[in-house]
């Protein structure tokens, strides 16, 4: 399919991009790697009047080590994120997730910011950002602001970003000493997750001292499994973990589609949380 007609501008700075978007009105959209927006345009499900290409804005690209946290620019590709040395400790989750997005072509064109802004409940990075209590940074006509990941994703393909705002990046706490894992379940290697589980775990000699679980494609937004996290804390054995994961059923009813019923998604989530936690804990005794 061929997109409907649209105008195109390429911005050379963030300020220029913001003023182009402001002038373009509500049907203007920023274009980064194009891996979410262009397929929708080709199906004519999205019909922006103007695309503002932000791909050439260098200030939005790159990974910066801020000590306790890492700041990732919106235009950083998934491939670059996957290889970022600054992502240590629990924040290594972001690199693990990025490594499994799509296929090599997607990872070399698709960007972190584009994926976050698209707010697809089936995409992987949002659940990881949620698990890490990351912040999303935005720039708009009124200046810049930060929004907690937990507040950023408000519905399917809906975020807290206002019209005319651009996602400029994310800030991710490192959580040194924590382990991480992303369990992604899909039919084909390049598919979206049927269910994804992003886990960071603080494993100590006495067991799990802390855990955070983000879920992909288990609801209209990425979800935090707070009840599971609470039940996991203080556990150290496989049987206890298996009991804790059943708390995932306290969340909203998972979606049903051609790949999975609600019931099966719920079952998968439990299996995958247990696996992710065991992997993130790095404790062989807890793995199957």
């Amino acid at each position, binding site marked *: 399919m061929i997109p409907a007609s649209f105008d195109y501008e390429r911005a050379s700075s963030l300020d220029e991009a913001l003023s182009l978007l402001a002038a373009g009105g509500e049907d203007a959209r920023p274009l980064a790697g194009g891996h979410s927006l262009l397929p929708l345009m080709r199906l004519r499900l999205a019909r922006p009047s103007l695309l503002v290409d932000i791909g050439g804005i260098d200030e939005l690209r790159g990974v910066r080590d801020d000590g306790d946290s890492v700041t990732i620019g919106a235009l950083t590709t998934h491939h670059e994120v996957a290889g970022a040395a600054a992502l240590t400790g629990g924040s290594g989750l972001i690199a693990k997730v990025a490594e499994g997005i799509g296929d090599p072509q997607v990872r070399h064109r698709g960007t972190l910011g584009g994926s976050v802004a698209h707010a697809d409940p089936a995409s992987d990075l949002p659940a990881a950002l949620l698990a890490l209590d990351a912040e999303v940074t935005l720039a708009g006509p009124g200046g810049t602001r930060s929004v907690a990941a937990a507040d950023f994703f408000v519905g399917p393909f809906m975020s807290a970003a206002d019209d005319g705002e651009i996602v400029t990046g994310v800030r991710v706490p490192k959580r040194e000493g924590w382990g991480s894992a992303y369990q992604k379940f899909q039919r084909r290697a*390049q598919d979206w997750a049927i269910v994804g589980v992003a886990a960071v775990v603080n494993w100590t000699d006495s067991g799990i001292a802390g855990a955070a679980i983000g879920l992909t494609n288990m609801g209209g937004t990425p979800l935090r499994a707070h009840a599971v996290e609470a039940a996991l804390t203080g556990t150290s054995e496989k049987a206890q973990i298996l009991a804790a994961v059943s708390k995932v059923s306290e969340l909203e009813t998972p979606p049903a589609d051609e790949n999975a019923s609600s019931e099966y998604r719920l079952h998968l989530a439990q299996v995958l949380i247990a696996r992710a936690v065991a992997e993130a804990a790095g404790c062989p005794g807890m793995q199957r």
Partner: protein
Amino acid sequence: MATAEKYVGGGVPRKEDPKLLTGQGQFLEGLTLPGMLHAALVRSPHGSARIDSVDVSAAAAADGVVAAYSGADLADEWAAGLPMAWPVTDDIRIPDHWPVAQDVARYVGDAVAVVVATSRNAALDAAELVEVDYEVLDAVVDVEAAVADGAPRVHESFDDNKSYTWALTNGEVDEAFAKADVVVKERYTQPRLIPNAMEPRAVVAQPVPSTGDFTVWSTTQIPHVAKVLFALTLGIPESQIRVIAPSDVGGGFGSKLNVYAEEALCIALARRLGKPVKWVAGRSEGYLATIHGRDQVQEIEIAATSDGDILGYRVHILAAMGAYLQLVAPGVPLLGAFLYCGCYGGEAYHFECTGVFTNTTPTDAYRGAGRPEATYAIERAIDSLAREVGVDPAEIRRRNFLPAGDMVQSPGGLAFDSADYEPALDRALELLDYDGFRSDQAERREGGGSRQIGVGFSSYVEICGLAPSQVLASLKYAAGGWDAATVRMLPTGKAEVVTGSSPHGQGHVTSWSQIAADALGIPYEDVTVLHGDTHVAPHGMNTYGSRSLAVAGVAVHNACDRVVDKARGLAAHLLEVAPEDLEYEAGIFSVKGVPDRTKSMPELAFAAWTAHSLPEDSEPGLEASCVYDPPNFTFPFGTHVAVVEVDTETGAVDLVRYIAVDDCGPVINPVIVDGQVHGGVAQGIAAALYEEATYAEDGTLETSSMVNYLVPSAAEFPSFETDRTVTPSTSNPMGVKGIGEAGTIGSAPAVINAIVDALSHLGVTDVPMPASPERVWRAIQAAQGGEA
């Protein structure tokens, strides 16, 4: 001929590849003609709807638009509806099938209007402006629902949704079942599949208004057949139509073995507007408007002794035709009708198939066409029999194999040439290390973990070399099964091979070059193969059903022999000896006993061209033709083995090993044969694990793009292990059989049998295709007494 080994059998690089690998392929989308217009179709969004009105005025007034028409506007263009060439019974119901629907749209994607503009973009934009008033009717999309009482009728003019019922009985079937110790009865569904050729369909029709001639470029597998059918559909003399399948057509798998609405439409629009008209399918548009495959419900019963010796078979099939009958759709189940007994014996056989209309995209031949369905049913059911009588699945196959030999009578009614099924099974078991596998499996089961392994077998026999024309007549197919070749030596010693096959990825240019180079004793590089243009290659029945080598390739071989015969006469004349005093080897005739008195093929080609001195009664030129009508089908066979690891917690299936041992007779090019096996196996595994087109009750195609119609990529497959046995066919002088579909035919049941084997200790006996993780998980839950 010592040189016979020179190219044939060798893995010479494909001549087709350099241009494809460097982006120089000449595909139809790249064709632009002066003044060319572009068509875009408006398609029904409803599974069944009466068309109350079509208003094209806004579209016609849009920028760049030249014309816009409803189905009614175009009704006068058609001398006949779109063709259907296989009326399998005398009482078959054949509905009218207009390129653009006139009164009722019968599936989502049925064309209801067309817009023609100066650019493709303008046509697509304007197509959105066509306003159609529909009265939405009840649709029926499921083949069993369609034959139930009170089902909505796809065609109001017929009493119900049945198109035809075709039956075949051999032997005393009731008797065989009456005396059986064991009867297994199984029901299988063949999911609907969407063919995914790399290149979507496209067509360009160019008129010459002053003469009434048309040149039609189409991404077709069948340029010659299409030419005849375009003439009948459009009322244009066949002599005024030239059809060209471009030198590169990007795959078909049967989906381009058809005559489509858009082809007829572009010709009609070119005739009406006096300008070339082009249409190119989008991928998702192709999902609606290009034929689908499979979509059958099968019931198979096997009667056997308590030892597992098969006595008889009963098979009942419901086969979805979709909303209309496409070119050979009714015959597709017949291509499998003789094979529900596989390569096994027995005394009696009954097959019955009902073709059913549903409000869906029409089905037709898709890679294997009838044979994957038949092979799936028998290869799954024989595993059920093995379980029932407590015999190992490899052993039960061996026990029931037809005896080795030539023209071995099958219970299905056909006589199989070159039957020798045990060596392929033995080789597959050896590659697998069957005993080692079973001991690994026992260990896993003992361990009780969540990763269990299983092995599945599929010993298939199939039918290629379509087809003896007289046999086609008995099956009511409306064309012959021959093919044609002309081999022409050029004055400089090069050769042209003109073939009636129409390659679209198979590598005929390479294979035909190998055959001709060996026969004529000239370098492989010196052979050019011409194909796909009805002005260049006037005769052909084209490429489908793994027929090309065993029919068109044999025609090339025979034509080469005739060229050598003529060359022998000329050589004898020039060397002043009798023809029988000459020896021929590697393109050189030499006088027996006087080896330095010779004439080479290039020398003779030049002499034949100058014609300065020819034998009496001989004509200038060195060229011969052959139209080859095969005396019998060919019957390739083999054993495929799948090894899977199943995650019993999630239901995920990991294909760990895939072994294919095929017997397609002597191999012209092992690289090409391996490629066909790899691609075919991938498509069969895709059916077993991934692909399924589904419709909502209102007729909406739910799997409308590659996002949710799951075509697997290389990442989903292990490295395939291929091997061969070689049992030459006795039906043709080269002994060749065909390999284009074997991989697809053999693979799906092997994979599902492996999944069932992996879970058999949990009580699982069946998992439907495609074996999605949820289906596998539910099968485990059901077997364990939980809810399914």
